[in-house]
């Protein structure tokens, strides 16, 4: 239940509100999650007036304001096409018109195409106050701790080519499993696996893939993919993406 609604006109005011110990205060982006009925009482800080949706790009960096809607990203020619395709697969048009990149980062789970892509791209998050930079791969495991009283304002990514392949029951269904891959500028492969699980997984370069797959599979919801299939298909997708990248 929402007990206070604020629409600050500048970032400082927003951060002051978010820093309060009571009542529990949450940032409100598109509203697709916080508009639903919740039993707990909390205040919301609507970020729509803060102009946090800017998208800028250079050869080595794309910065996306976290209040950019997913559809704005899909339509922005500065964003590489494969990333726009991934964002388009995140949800249907209405939800892309409403949902923001920031909302997606904060609420998305292992099924999120965007979060898997950000993890694979080794995206950095700029967090206020203090303009702290933290890698998305660190943030997803510590988000509760990091997010207290703070706000992600920008996502920065290195626009290196990204490839992905997902297995779905229908073309726009949630991914049962997916593999995302990119090569860094020093030619190191970065592989992420997503699917019907709590978080996307970054495969470590120093571990054997089969060992990691056992752990990843154990975290899949509903056990709706067998180990046999998971272990059989992930290497196929990895192989294909490697070929594509090479």
């Amino acid at each position, binding site marked *: 239940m*929402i007990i*206070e*609604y604020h629409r600050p006109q500048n970032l400082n005011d927003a951060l002051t509100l978010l820093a309060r110990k009571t009542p529990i205060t949450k940032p*409100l982006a598109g509203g697709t999650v916080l508009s639903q*009925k919740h039993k707990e009482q909390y205040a919301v800080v609507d970020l729509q007036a803060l102009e946090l949706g800017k998208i800028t790009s250079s050869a080595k960096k794309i910065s996306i304001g976290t209040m950019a809607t997913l559809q704005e990203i899909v339509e922005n020619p500065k964003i590489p096409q494969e990333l726009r395709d991934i964002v388009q697969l995140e949800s*249907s*048009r*209405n939800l892309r018109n409403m949902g923001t990149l920031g909302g997606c980062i904060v609420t998305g789970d292992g099924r999120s195409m965007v979060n898997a892509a950000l993890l694979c791209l080794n995206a950095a998050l700029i967090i206020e106050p203090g303009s702290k930079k933290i890698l998305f791969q660190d943030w997803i495991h510590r988000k509760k701790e990091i997010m207290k009283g703070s706000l992600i304002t920008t996502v920065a990514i290195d626009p290196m080519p990204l490839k992905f392949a997902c297995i779905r029951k229908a073309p726009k269904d949630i991914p049962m499993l997916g593999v995302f891959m990119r090569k860094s500028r020093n030619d190191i492969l970065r592989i992420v696996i997503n699917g019907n699980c709590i978080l996307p997984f970054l495969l470590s370069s120093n571990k054997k893939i089969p060992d990691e797959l056992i752990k990843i599979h154990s975290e899949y919801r*509903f056990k709706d993919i067998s180990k046999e299939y998971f272990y059989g298909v992930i290497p196929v997708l990895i192989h294909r993406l490697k070929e594509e990248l090479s």
Partner: protein
Amino acid sequence: MKIFFTLNEVKREIDIDLSETLFTVLRREGIFSIKSGGCKHGECGACTVLMDGKAINSCSILAAQVDGHVIQTVEKLGQHPEQGWKKTQGLDPLQENFIRAGAIQCGYCTPAMLLAAKSALKDHSKPSEEDIRDAISGILCRCTGYKKPVEAIVQTLRGKTGSKLNIPLNVDFAEQSKGWEKVGKSEQKVDGVKLVQGKPAFTDDFKMPGMLYAKILHSPHAHARIIKIDTTKAKKLKGVAAMLTWQDIPRVLYSTAGQSDPIPGPLDSVSLDNKVRFVGDRVAFVAAETEEIALKAIDLLKVDYEILPPVLDSSEAMKKDSPMIHDEKDYVNFGDSDRKKNLAASIRIDIGNVEHGFDCADRIFEKDYEVPKVQQAHIEPHVVLTYWDEDDRLVIRTSTQVPFHARRQLAPVLGLPIKRIRVIKPRIGGGFGGKQEVLIEDVAAHLTIATGRPVRLEYTREEEFIAARSRHPMKIHLKTGVKNDGSITANEMYALTDTGAYGCHALTVTGNTGHKSMAMYVGDGEFRKSPNIRFYADIVYTNTPPAGAYRGYGVPQGFWPVERHMEMIARELHLDPIEFRLKNAIRSGEIHPFSTAWSEGREPKPEVINVIGLPECIEKGKKAVGWDKKFGNPTWHRVPGKPYLKRGIGIATVMQGTAIPYLDMGGASIKMNDDGSFNLLVGATDLGTGSDTILAQMAAEILGVNTDDVIVYSSDTDFTPFDKGAYASSTTYISGTAVVKAAQIVAERIKQRATDLFNGELDREKVDSSQIHLSQSKAFSPDGRSISLEKIGHASLHHSDQEQIMGVASYMSPIAPPPFAAQFAEVLVDIQTGQVTVENLVMAVDSGMIINPLAATGQIEGGMIQALGYAVCEEMTYDQKGQSHQKDFIDYHIFRADEVPPMQAIFVGTYEPSHPFGAKAVAEIPLDGVAPAVGNAILDACGADVTTLPATPERVWKAIQKLK
């Protein structure tokens, strides 16, 4: 909090609660075009509005966020062009094209589609079809398959607003339809103008003063006895008006299946029991001043359960040591139901001499198949409003397919005589069988009886998944004997059906599985003369949500194994799969084999099938899909540069039924007005199929008027004649014949009065009423004179020998002429991952004469996409405690506009002599053949034999591994 925003070009200042969504606020402000799909995460999009020109879900945004913005709804898009003395702009071209293109079926999602389309047309100067599909991807439509909405948007884009779409009838129809003016034409939907404006036509669009909101406490356990319910805290909550548990209302056994009397199944349900039998079963009802208070009260109920071991697997249900799900002593058996064995129903049908048939076979083929539990997924959830009227009669306004059955079945449950219940069926936002169930009407009615106040209850999407009905899952064993020349000598099916916790539709759905799918192939030669067919089934209880009626009613379950089996046999015997099917398929003039043996527990009566257009369906379908160029062509099966991708093509031939003989009855009443228009009152229930339009067309044809001169009202148990309701593909055939008979009575009377007027003219030749012809809203004499129907109607009511010209008729059929179809699918299979992409669907149908080609193609297209979900992605699954894995449209995916494959519907020209206009059914048969056609196409692509639906990537992959 106060918000300031612009709503439909008017600046508004509105008080809101901080937690309120825009949806809640707009509905309160009288914006009824936005609808609720009951979803939690904005998956359905029925509540779409434009915010600053962009399509968004009003249910997924706080009203507070809208402060300072511009909101537009369909209410501002356009309006009925005739508003009396007031000049209006009329409908928007997009609205007009939605009507013309047949883009509306139930109409529940139509306003949302219109807004999303409007936004797309504004955003793009030249949107591609892909852009259009993406633009409407946020709005789920379970009726249309999206083809016609996309066509409507494309038409608007091209600026074709003046031309009327008219799908030409196949040339084969021409002879019999010669002279018809309305039947056989793509007439516009009679309710189209209402639906494109988003008028308050649906159940939840009506509010009553003092209305309470109801909620149900659902069981968290699959199987448990209720020891105690502590209601103290909940009752103390301010705003709670009533709380009912099993101790508060009379225990009356009934069946929730909306069927004719006598109910062909066990009576195993009560409104509230002291035992719960599935996760989602009812524990208590609450009525409160607001929905929030009702939910809070539900949370405050404290229930002590004695948890019992559940039965979750149908294969375990009949085992000796299985827990008994229905241990209540007042359980009422039907036929062979046996609660001690968890057996809701049992079927044993033997036709001919099956053992002899197997003895005659050169080869015996046996295999096991499995089909899943799936949801109807109508976008409008179950919703009901009950209240006492001024005469202390209980009014039940409900989204139901069966208003008359609901009245009859609820009367004893509520302790009221039938005459003190009135059921009103407003517009329905899709049903597909899910609303052939008396599912929640009793809940609201009990609470109205308890409080004396109006009560509204609407299911959430989660409740639809955990506490509504579904298609029966089945495990099927099929055994077929075949001669080396391809003649089938005997066919035997055993089906183990899981009816869930209650036996609603248990017997009849599974009976239909055999009755249709096992009737298709009778064999050839001596075996054709005396087919050998066995159909045995056990329908068992489990502690899962009950199954029920779902479009196709058991037949899709049967054709999955039968059509996969036929394909496998043909390939094993190196026979052409189509020739093999035609060699053994039933032919025109033959007796429906099951009609001699089974009739849902009633006396069977042999039925001859007059017309079977299956060979023509195959011929036309093959041509449309390019079968001869693709089947058996290795080049076509390959994808250059991608050796892991294989193409495949498959066919399934299917049949359905048209109504239930000697049982289904529909009535119609027509009265003439003083302007020559007519009121048609029918109990038939248009749940989005377009049946109101089709019935109006048939009446208009007989009466010689325009279709929009027939004003259709359906249905209200106080005002309209009885009709069994919308199921069994019967409305065009049964209710339609009743309409034709009523129209003929009216037409006769008009002709008589016209004769009197003609013969009153001096110095003219006398005419006989049999010579009068009604056309163009006039009565014509043989010598070319005419009198307008307006003049006849006016005179009959006001001037001489005054009378109300009217006719009432009803119809019950002794036969159920089956429609037939050939369904084709083309697929692309990734043989390394098992991922299947369906690339094309074609369906050629013999449904007799097509009354409205536009509406009929819409039925086929929508049905094919529903069936595609059954084929590849839809499945309801449960964990070891009976908890549902799927509670929303995220985990349970139904096809969106931006992912459906191309598809084509084709009609073949047959004429069913038992119907006044030669029609058979069309609504259910599209569900039957898509899955097996896809399965056969996968087999054709890579040899993978998937026996369990849906054909998920993993199942296909595993079938491929078996080939290695």
